[in-house]
């Protein structure tokens, strides 16, 4: 790792002020991606602002049908939360499928979605459940949050504070995990929400995306059969050593059908 300065701010306001005072500083959440990135010298911030000491960024609340998860809440805490299991069991399952137990004890919701890794699991939940991302400056709808490969709607220095998930009527997440890393080769969240059916995919493209054709078909008939002829363009799929674009396009259909079968 290159050398850097380490600071542990005490509050969101303190972190944001320090971040805006130094263009070269970066936030450190759980560090499950950032620390390996620093080790490989793929990033060279002059200053790390460790968010680990900010208690207002942690915690889970369930109120009036909305589940709110603090940005620095660990995957393990989401997976084990009785409020999450009660309101959105699919989200608990998703969080419990990330990486391995040691990674889940450190990795955070905010860190995951701010990174917008194309194979991360949480983006499928943020898009698929119609969540809202609350930052220190504004609210961003889940549909508008992910912009591309490792790219989000966040402005430089903007800090995710929490994410609110409206409780769906029913939802399921199915993924085909990479057998070594447990990253999603393809993961699909299918949810019936107050505003309609949502189908969101992670792992397959540059960032999480919805499939409107599947949503429309499921609105007419909620069955795996209803989407059997709906495909995603192979040209939009990721193609790497883990899976070809053709295979990923195929897996999108398979995982969507499995998710539908799990909740139908």
């Amino acid at each position, binding site marked *: 790792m290159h*050398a850097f*300065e380490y600071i542990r701010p005490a509050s969101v306001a303190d972190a944001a002020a320090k971040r805006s005072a130094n263009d070269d500083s970066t936030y450190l959440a759980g*560090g499950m991606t950032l620390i390996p990135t620093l080790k490989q010298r793929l990033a060279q911030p002059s200053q790390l602002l460790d968010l680990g000491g900010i208690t207002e960024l942690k915690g889970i609340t369930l109120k009036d049908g909305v589940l709110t998860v603090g940005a620095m809440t660990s995957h393990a805490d989401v997976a084990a939360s009785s409020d999450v299991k009660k309101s959105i069991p699919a989200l608990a399952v998703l969080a419990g499928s990330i990486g391995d137990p*040691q990674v889940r004890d*450190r990795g955070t919701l905010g860190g995951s979605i701010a990174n917008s890794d194309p194979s991360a699991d949480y983006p499928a939940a943020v898009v698929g459940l119609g969540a809202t991302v609350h930052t220190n400056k504004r609210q961003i709808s889940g549909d508008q949050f992910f912009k591309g490969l490792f790219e989000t709607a966040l402005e430089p220095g903007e800090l995710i504070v929490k994410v609110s998930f409206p409780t769906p009527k029913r939802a399921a997440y199915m993924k085909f995990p990479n057998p*070594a890393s447990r990253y999603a080769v393809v993961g699909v969240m299918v949810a019936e929400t107050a505003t309609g059916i949502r189908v969101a995919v992670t792992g397959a493209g540059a960032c999480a995306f919805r499939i409107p054709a599947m949503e429309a078909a499921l609105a007419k008939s909620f069955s795996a059969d209803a989407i059997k002829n709906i495909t995603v363009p192979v040209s939009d799929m990721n193609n790497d050593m883990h899976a070809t674009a053709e295979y990923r396009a195929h897996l999108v259909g398979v995982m969507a059908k499995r998710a539908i079968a799990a909740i139908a």
Partner: protein
Amino acid sequence: MTKVSVTVNGAARSGEVEPRTLLVEFLRVGLGLTGTHVGCDTSQCGACTVHLNGKPVKSCTMLALQADGQQVTTIEGVAKGDVLHPMQAAFKECHGLQCGFCTPGMVMSALGIVERHKADQLSEAVVRHELEGNLCRCTGYQGIVNAVLMGAKALGVKVV
């Protein structure tokens, strides 16, 4: 250099580290606690697993300063003097190791599994699933899984 103070295996320890010093480097080089191993240095193998505030984490993927003011338990803090912890005894009994390099991390992860399931029950399938963060290149895992189940049982967890 920055001062870091951590409670390690129940004792207050401190040292001077660079901000980029990893927790595992501080434990091994700074404190001489070489039971915690570095296998892959890429957060995959779990040989560096220690407990941070009671929960297993990979000490190669966090900074020493992130542990400042917190509680760390390493493999050296598990036995009571010369008496092996029941989980360590189970690894010995079940031949849950061959070369032994992964064993400190395996034991620390196994104790995490026990902690998570002490109120319910534990099965072989759950043990295999929750050992996903630890790699062993010799045993084929059967002895390790047997050891975790035996150790869990000795610690009062219902094994099914």
